């Protein structure tokens, strides 16, 4: 299906939905092409190639609401599917807040180039992908005789989304994403086999780092974990590597959702305009960021994308409120889901911040754990390294950090100038004082 055929199918499905008795409808047609190569032990481990399509349908029958999707796009099957789901929707309770968004929230201009599609995507060959994965594995394995296994990968996705709404919106999204990296396992003298990984994600193939850099970084990260131990429980200063900052940001973004507010399960209810974190934290949601992994012109309800400073020097400015919960709460919608996170960055990189730490713990990864958006309580497993007199002295693991988000985010004392480039959350390194660690 080309763009025109996709739009025609979307409009046909929308019109049929209305004919069958819906008062409003929106249709999304999604196409994804994917290639994934894994290389291990000097040979191709997995080769996977696929194309998938699906149609998703939001139905409003006199304020009764359902959302339905299918990947069986044969017209006969679709006709039956639409008839069935409209019939089912009629059984549901009416909900006065259910309707398509007011068209005033739709984007005026959908011709902005967010630089998220690589035009060269189609010319990338299978052998180029295999070659890169093979090189990454070779580089990683060459770093040390302690390495027992490396799985390297190269994968890419091309996505196309066509969206139409019965009250006058239609829009397209097209993007590419390239990933390359490796997971490395090493064996230490105790028989422990620590693993770590390094991966880059980019919108353009040429922006991927070299195989050399990817392989070396993956290996070095795993090698640094050899001999990892847990240390004594206590309050420690905590330096958090940029690539895992998102886990901590989620302590705030989960309770910032309109649903959490309306369902009275957010500790941030009533906190708009108030200080919820240290003034070092300025969190910006920027869907219009060029080449961003989370960039978009409109969100999952068709609402126009807009850059917003969600938290400004520790003060909560906005919640994530979709159109439905906005109506339910009687407030203006923003968007129901985050896009790219950018920050007001500091002045130093992680290495420079580390030099000033007399005693502390560097966090390089989280394992398990969870948080409670109603109360702010959280507890996460961690791994990383002990810092003594500005130097990394020993790898640590099998420890937890625990606390409550309300106090925790006020313990932030410095943010780095080193945004993580390979994810939608471009977190800098973060430095917190006196965090509760449990170990021995």
């Amino acid at each position, binding site marked *: 299906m080309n763009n025109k055929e996709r739009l025609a199918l979307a409009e046909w499905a929308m019109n049929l939905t209305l004919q069958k008795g819906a008062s409003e409808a929106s249709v999304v047609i999604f196409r994804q092409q994917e290639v994934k190569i894994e290389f*291990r032990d000097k040979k*191709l*481990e*997995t*080769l*996977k*190639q*696929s*194309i*998938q*399509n699906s149609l998703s349908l939001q139905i409003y029958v006199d304020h009764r609401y*359902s*959302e*339905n*999707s*299918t*990947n*069986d796009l044969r017209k006969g099957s679709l006709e039956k*599917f639409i008839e069935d789901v409209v019939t*089912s*929707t009629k*059984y*549901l*309770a009416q*909900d006065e807040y259910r309707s398509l968004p007011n068209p005033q929230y739709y984007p005026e201009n959908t011709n902005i180039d967010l630089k998220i599609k690589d035009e060269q995507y189609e010319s990338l060959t299978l052998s180029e992908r295999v070659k890169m994965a093979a090189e990454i594995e070779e580089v990683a394995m060459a770093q040390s005789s302690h390495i027992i*296994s490396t*799985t390297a990968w190269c994968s890419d996705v091309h996505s196309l989304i066509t969206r139409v709404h019965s009250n006058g919106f239609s829009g397209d999204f097209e993007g590419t994403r390239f990933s390359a990296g490796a997971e490395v*396992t090493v064996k230490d003298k105790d028989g*422990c*086999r*620590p*693993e770590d990984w390094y991966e880059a994600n980019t919108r353009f193939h040429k922006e991927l780092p070299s195989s050399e850099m990817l392989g070396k970084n993956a290996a070095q990260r795993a090698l640094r974990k050899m001999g*990892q131990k*847990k240390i004594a*429980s206590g309050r420690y200063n905590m330096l958090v590597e940029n690539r895992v900052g998102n886990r901590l940001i989620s302590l705030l973004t989960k309770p910032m959702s309109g649903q959490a507010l309306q*369902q*009275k*399960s957010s500790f941030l209810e009533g906190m708009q305009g108030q200080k919820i974190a240290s003034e070092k934290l300025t969190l910006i949601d920027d869907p219009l960021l060029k080449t961003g992994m989370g960039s978009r012109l409109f969100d999952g309800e068709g609402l126009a994308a807009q850059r917003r400073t969600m938290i400004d020097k520790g003060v909560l400015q906005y919640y994530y409120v979709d159109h439905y919960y906005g109506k339910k709460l009687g407030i203006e919608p923003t968007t129901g889901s985050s896009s790219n996170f950018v920050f007001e960055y500091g002045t130093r990189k992680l290495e420079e911040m580390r030099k000033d730490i007399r005693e502390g713990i560097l966090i390089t990864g989280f*394992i*398990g*754990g*969870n*948080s*409670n958006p*109603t109360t702010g*309580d*959280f*507890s996460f*497993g961690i791994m990383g390294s002990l810092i003594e007199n500005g130097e990394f002295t020993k790898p640590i*693991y*099998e*420890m*937890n*950090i*625990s606390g409550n988000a309300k106090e925790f985010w006020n313990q932030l004392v410095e943010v780095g100038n080193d945004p993580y480039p390979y994810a939608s959350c471009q977190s800098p390194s973060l430095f917190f004082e006196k965090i*509760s*660690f*449990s*170990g*021995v």
Partner: protein
Amino acid sequence: MLKKEVMTLNDYYAHFEVEEGIIRKVITEALSNGGDYCDVYFQHQISNYIGLEDKAVNRAYSNVDFGVGIRVLKGDQTGYSFTEEITPQAMQLAAKTAANIAASGKPVNPVPLKLHSHSNYYPIETLWEEVSIDKKMPYLQTINDKVFALDSRVIKSTIWFANQTAYMLFANSEGRVVYDYQPMGLILVSCTAEQEGRREQNFFNLSARNGIEFFTPANVDRLAKEAVNSTVMLFDAVKPKAGEMEVVLAAGSSGILLHEAIGHGMEADFNRKGISIFSDKINQPVAEKFVSIVDNGTNPHIRGSINIDDEGNDTEETVLVENGILRSYLHDRISANYYQVKPTGNGRRESFRHAPIPRMRNTYMLPGPHKKEEIISSVNKGLYAEMFSNGQVNIGGGDFTFYVKSGYLIENGKLTRPVKDVNIIGNGPDVLKNIVMVADDLKMAEGGWTCGKNGQGVPVSQGLPTVKVSKMTVGGIN
């Protein structure tokens, strides 16, 4: 829609609009580059969810997934492709793509397909496709009424009813063809309560490979009661002190300990690659003699049960630890070939979009010699862990975690104050060694547990008798 009881192989061929001749042609194409083996996996999965929020059933979600995955193996190398169009042309194209994993060798002729029959561990009364939305809505309304009637501190409740059915048809180049009908039901109740300006939230859910008959009046009652009780108890909850302590795991969903501490590490793909902390430990002692752990696909109606795995192999009870000795990994086809053992029926996949890999089913510990009361009274200062939300493990490092939503402090041999929201972290082999007491009260988890690995989620379950671990690190406060 056809009645499950009378569905034959020909009905499944008709359901997917294929016939043996087409499948054999696809397999021939897939092996044309010299692959050793090929399988094709047809799947039609229908999922439905309805939700209650603010006292009304006012939202429904549904998904239909239909397609075929084609896998070619060359030694331990995998070529994979899938198509959502089940036409001879589209399947031939996908077969050609998967064939690319092999580059040389002579083409093989597939043998005629022969039906492999299997037991049914999850017979149901009514197919889920025949249960319309209006038959499910009253369950949610009833539960919601009960939730609000049980405690005046309840201010909000959301309830989800989810059900799924999958038709699967599998054939391989060795001539095996199998089919299965896989049902699943789940109700989840979430509850928020308020007391003197403080709010707490918790949830309870029940799930089974069963039909709507699973949601008996007794289960409906339990869903409401447990959701409310587990929420309001949190008003009295405290955070334990940080650090190592004795941990007693309540019988039931505490089996998450086994899933993380040993289950994943025993999945044979990790061991074949030498990257599991359990690599090279088969037939070695890993725990006390009263510790026996199994992974079983045959428990009637339990969420992780499967009649047949996703590579057409019979499911079974696989013994991971027998009287303290490590016995068997969990195998898929590739690893069983590598180790030259019989497959254990653990080759599973999320859908036709994925190649199968070794996965757990229902992982549990067999009953031991101790009594629950005896175990609790033996603890001077520790934690009793009862409700869980999630866990994770590092396969090679062996460090694993599970998150305790609620439990109790144990002080001087008695359960005292409730605790909430603590992560527990341990190391797989160390924790197995530190299991010092096992009670005789094995209970299976009843919730909607889903295990994630390599981007694929599959339904699982777990179980445990009351167990005491002499030390684990509890994520408390200093």
